[in-house]
């Protein structure tokens, strides 16, 4: 009964989304107030329906209803309860439903949210969001219905893919989707502004918190995925330039550019059409990411069973959304002229550089990710693009970007008096250079050319981003949430830069053959293989090794890597033993029985790699703090109320 109820709720949600789209877009166009008034109830109704559908699917998983095909394919009676819940989004159909649920939730938040939008504009935003929702609901109902029954029902399910039976994977998709879907909100704001043919600084102030929040979720989602790939897939690293990783990284790069360009639009009323274009790009890349990952056109862990109908549908939807938005842009963007200008050396100029470099980096990643697809479509030999391409090409725009962060932070808006900031810039750079060199050659050994560069840039970002807050704090001035948030996010970036530099420069990894009692040496560390015992879990059996890690001959920790055999799927799964010592992440994974009492063992020591993942969360924390700044809550359109008395408004008044 529940699955049918869920299916029915999903159909009702589709109808309500259509209502929301029509009244949201047609209402303001024809100036019908009653139509506009119908939009919010439709949003609420759609959310209730989607939540009901999602609840029904979850209930089927919890009660182990193996008459539902999707449940039978992705669950099992021996599966622990937490993974029964996360199994809801463990495969294609359910993850789409999660996408739709999160979109409905974001839409609800926009409709009844904190920033009170003008009636017409708000209706248009909701209308565009409704259109996106219609597309995804149609897709789900037509090609990927999770509520289909299995006749006859099976006694037990095929179990969740063992790789996905993991806490990080329970949170990774919801976080990532919160980010993807959040960019839909920025996209809807952009489309609404274009439909309206008007875009003022108030628009930027409405859009900023939503975009920042989406970016925060995306950052955390990417970090969780990377962390999971590290210890569960045993890929041994934090980034592999895998097409699926790139698919989530591209919207992040576009989103980062968008956040910075929105800041300029908000504070100075510049970059208007560029900001709109970035909002369209960020969401298009989110859709492209979904397409790449879900349609099975690329080789990856995430490509579930490839179904051509699905690929064609997503591609069509992609073309409609992106094509539509870009046509609207071509038609309306010329209306939006920026009035003010800026000087050479002003903060605007550095933010412009930030945007250009981020977009170049984005183009590099996009090119490398799509090249194999394009080449294959043209019927040329299959090729693959990997780390050797991505690393140098990505670093080319990113290193100058990191070097310019310090300038952008200290530069003033509008005026290009960089000379006034010469002293703090030089002093902080000198300190960073000395510390960077000391770190590169003093603490660890085996530095490359880029090691001191990375450390110095990271430290320079830390020092310069602290200049302004420390100065304000000394002079007992108020510190707004915007400034605190921005500072924390930049500290997160510096953390990532330093972490990545350390990992790339000082990692030690080796596959070795060890018998029980034997040990291997890695610099000052020694790894000893002590014991091997049988182990049994709820839905698997296997072996468990006991390894002792020694530092300078003193025992440090005991790690227990496992080799599991999941009974239902009959698949072997490696669970690495992971420990941490002075910032160095130690990973030990069991390979296989090599006969003669020996086992193959993978040992990896990665300094500061934990900070790379932590950095994403620090950035997200900064973003959330900035997004909750007071100034975003009481924004009114300039059309209804003349120049508000905020700092930005005053500045603008002078400029005009």
């Amino acid at each position, binding site marked *: 009964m529940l699955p049918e109820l869920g299916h029915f709720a999903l159909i009702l949600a589709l109808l309500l989304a259509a209502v929301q789209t029509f009244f949201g877009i047609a209402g303001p166009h024809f100036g019908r107030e009653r139509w506009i008034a119908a939009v919010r109830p439709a949003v609420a109704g759609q959310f209730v329906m989607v939540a009901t559908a999602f609840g029904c699917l979850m209930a089927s998983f919890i009660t182990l209803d193996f008459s539902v095909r999707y449940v039978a394919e992705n669950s099992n009676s021996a599966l622990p309860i937490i993974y029964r819940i996360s199994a809801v989004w463990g495969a294609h159909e359910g993850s789409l439903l999660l996408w739709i649920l999160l979109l409905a939730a974001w839409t609800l938040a926009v409709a009844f949210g904190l920033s009170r939008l003008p009636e017409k504009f708000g209706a248009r935003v909701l209308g565009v969001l409704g259109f996106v929702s219609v597309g995804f609901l149609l897709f789900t109902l037509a090609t990927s219905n999770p509520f289909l029954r299995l006749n006859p029902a099976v006694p037990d399910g095929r179990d969740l893919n063992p790789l996905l039976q993991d806490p990080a994977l329970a949170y990774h998709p919801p976080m990532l989707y919160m980010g993807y879907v959040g960019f839909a909100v920025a996209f809807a704001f952009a489309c609404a502004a274009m439909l309206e043919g008007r875009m003022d600084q108030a628009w930027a102030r409405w859009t900023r918190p939503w975009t920042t929040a989406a970016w925060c979720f995306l950052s955390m989602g990417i970090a969780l995925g990377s962390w999971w790939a590290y210890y569960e897939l045993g890929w041994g690293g934090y980034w592999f330039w895998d097409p699926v990783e790139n698919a989530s990284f591209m919207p992040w790069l576009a989103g980062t550019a968008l956040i910075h360009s929105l800041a300029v639009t908000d504070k100075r009323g510049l970059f208007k059409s560029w900001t709109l274009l970035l909002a369209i790009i960020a969401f298009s890349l989110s859709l492209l990411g979904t397409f790449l990952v879900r349609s099975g056109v690329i080789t990856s862990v995430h490509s579930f069973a490839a179904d051509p109908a699905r690929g064609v549908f997503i591609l069509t939807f992609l073309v409609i959304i992106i094509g539509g938005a870009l046509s609207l842009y071509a038609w309306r963007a010329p209306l939006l002229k920026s009035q003010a200008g800026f000087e*050479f050396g002003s903060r605007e100029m550095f933010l412009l550089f930030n945007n250009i470099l981020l977009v170049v980096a984005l183009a590099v990643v996009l090119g490398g990710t799509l090249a194999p697809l394009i080449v294959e479509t043209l019927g040329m030999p299959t090729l*693959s*693009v990997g780390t050797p*391409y991505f690393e140098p090409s990505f670093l080319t725009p990113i290193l100058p970007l990191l070097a310019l962060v310090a300038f952008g932070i200290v530069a003033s808006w509008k005026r290009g008096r960089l000379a006034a900031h010469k002293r703090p810039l030089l002093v902080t750079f000198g300190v960073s250079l000395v510390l960077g060199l000391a770190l590169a050659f003093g603490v660890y050994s085996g530095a490359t050319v880029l090691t001191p560069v990375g450390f110095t840039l990271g430290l320079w970002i830390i020092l310069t981003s602290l200049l302004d807050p420390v100065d304000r704090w000394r002079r007992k001035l108020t510190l707004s949430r915007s400034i605190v948030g921005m500072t924390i996010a930049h500290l997160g970036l510096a953390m990532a830069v330093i972490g990545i530099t350390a990992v790339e420069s000082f990692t030690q990894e080796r596959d070795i053959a060890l018998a029980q009692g034997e040990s291997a040496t890695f610099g000052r560390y020694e790894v000893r293989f002590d014991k091997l015992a049988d182990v049994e879990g709820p839905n698997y059996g296997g072996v468990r090794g006991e390894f002792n890690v020694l530092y300078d001959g003193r025992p440090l920790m005991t790690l227990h890597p496992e080799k599991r055999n999941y009974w239902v799927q009959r698949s072997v799964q490696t669970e690495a033993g992971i420990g941490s010592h002075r910032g160095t992440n130690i990973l030990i994974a069991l390979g296989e029985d*090599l006969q003669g009492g020996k086992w193959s063992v993978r040992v990896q020591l990665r300094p500061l790699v934990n900070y790379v993942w932590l950095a994403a969360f620090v950035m997200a924390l900064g973003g959330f703090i900035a997004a909750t700044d007071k100034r975003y809550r009481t924004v009114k359109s300039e059309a209804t109320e003349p120049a508000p008395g905020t700092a930005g408004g005053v500045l603008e008044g002078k400029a005009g």
Partner: protein
Amino acid sequence: MTPTRRRRLILVLGILAGVGIAGALALTAFQKNVMFFFDPSAVAAGEVKQGQRFRLGGMVSKGSVQRVPGTLEVHFTVTDFKHELPVTYTGILPDLFREGQGVVAHGRLNENGVFVADEVLAKHDENYMPPEVAHSLKKNEQPAAREGS
């Protein structure tokens, strides 16, 4: 030309030069580092250049996996049901590496015509086969290829 205009011109030229350099570097990196995919038949036909690093794909032949006891060295052959190619690898094989299953290996041919792999990838679950492998096997019309997909 006013100073403001000249500065703006320098700015625009600088941006263009920067983007141009980045583009040129990316293209060079791309040309140098792209890896092509070949199946054993293509290798037998001599399509692979001397010393070229490439991706080899096919099925692991049944009964071909041999270990050198006590070491990480392993030998197996990869087949597309027309031709076979011996492969040698030193290191830990992925969990899902099995005889009679799809596999992709990165590496080079040595003087003896043996493929020396530095990386071996296997399919991630039973629904999944590397698309290139599936394509290559379909081309050779071998019904056994359907087993895995």
